[in-house]
């Protein structure tokens, strides 16, 4: 019982559940607003101005997405990493995959935030 003492997994495990529970809320609202087609008379909701209108309507939506994006990216990538970790890679390979996941994660969050900032009404 002497070797290997990193208890970091306790936190990632817990975060995976916490983000999961919050995602349940985020995803249901997100799907409801952006994916499911409510009103047939409103012809097409997914276009730039439509979305923009929606997002600019309140501060809440901004906060909503700023929280949502990092959570879902963390949850998805940590989830994938857990699957890969089940295969118990050699420690070098594990390090490389982990690094790639970090890069991918940061990129995804950055791209998503940039997209959002456009939709929030900043540039373009």
């Amino acid at each position, binding site marked *: 019982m002497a070797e290997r003492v990193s208890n970091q997994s306790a936190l990632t495990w817990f975060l995976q559940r916490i983000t999961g529970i919050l*995602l349940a809320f985020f995803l249901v609202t997100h799907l409801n607003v952006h994916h499911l*087609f409510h009103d*047939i008379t409103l*012809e097409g909701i997914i276009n730039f101005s439509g979305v923009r209108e929606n997002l600019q309507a309140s501060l809440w939506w901004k906060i909503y997405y700023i929280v949502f994006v990092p959570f879902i990216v963390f949850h998805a990538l940590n989830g994938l990493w857990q699957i890969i970790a089940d295969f118990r890679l050699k420690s070098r390979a594990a390090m490389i995959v982990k690094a790639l996941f970090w890069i991918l994660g940061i990129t995804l969050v950055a791209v998503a935030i940039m997209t959002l900032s456009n939709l929030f009404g900043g540039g373009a």
Partner: protein
Amino acid sequence: MNGDSKLKAMIKDADLNKNIGNFSYWLHRVTGIGLSIYLIIHIYVLSSAISGPESFNERMGSVQNPFFAVLEVLLIAGVFAHMLNGLRITITDFFSWSRGHKVLFWILAVIFVILMIVAIKLQWPKFFIDNYAMGGH
């Protein structure tokens, strides 16, 4: 058996353990991977907004037709299945409810069906309108 690759051993286990827990585990895996891939694509597709409304609308237009509307239902099914099962295993761990996992599974299965009926009902019109997003222009 001996010498199998890890992947093969994993798939073989699915054959050797046919029960609710193992089924849910595979469902969770498959939907989890699917959703993650979708997430990456989703962010990529939406990132067209960075280059302005036109490219955004163009890209969105190409994915808003009955074919994608049906795929979207699949996505929603995946989200609900993954979400409900995620809640199931979280509840069993957080509230020491491991003995109740099968009951929970069937309760959530019913909720899943209800959610999907609602979702399909909401989605229904999109199955019939081609290029609906462009209509707004």
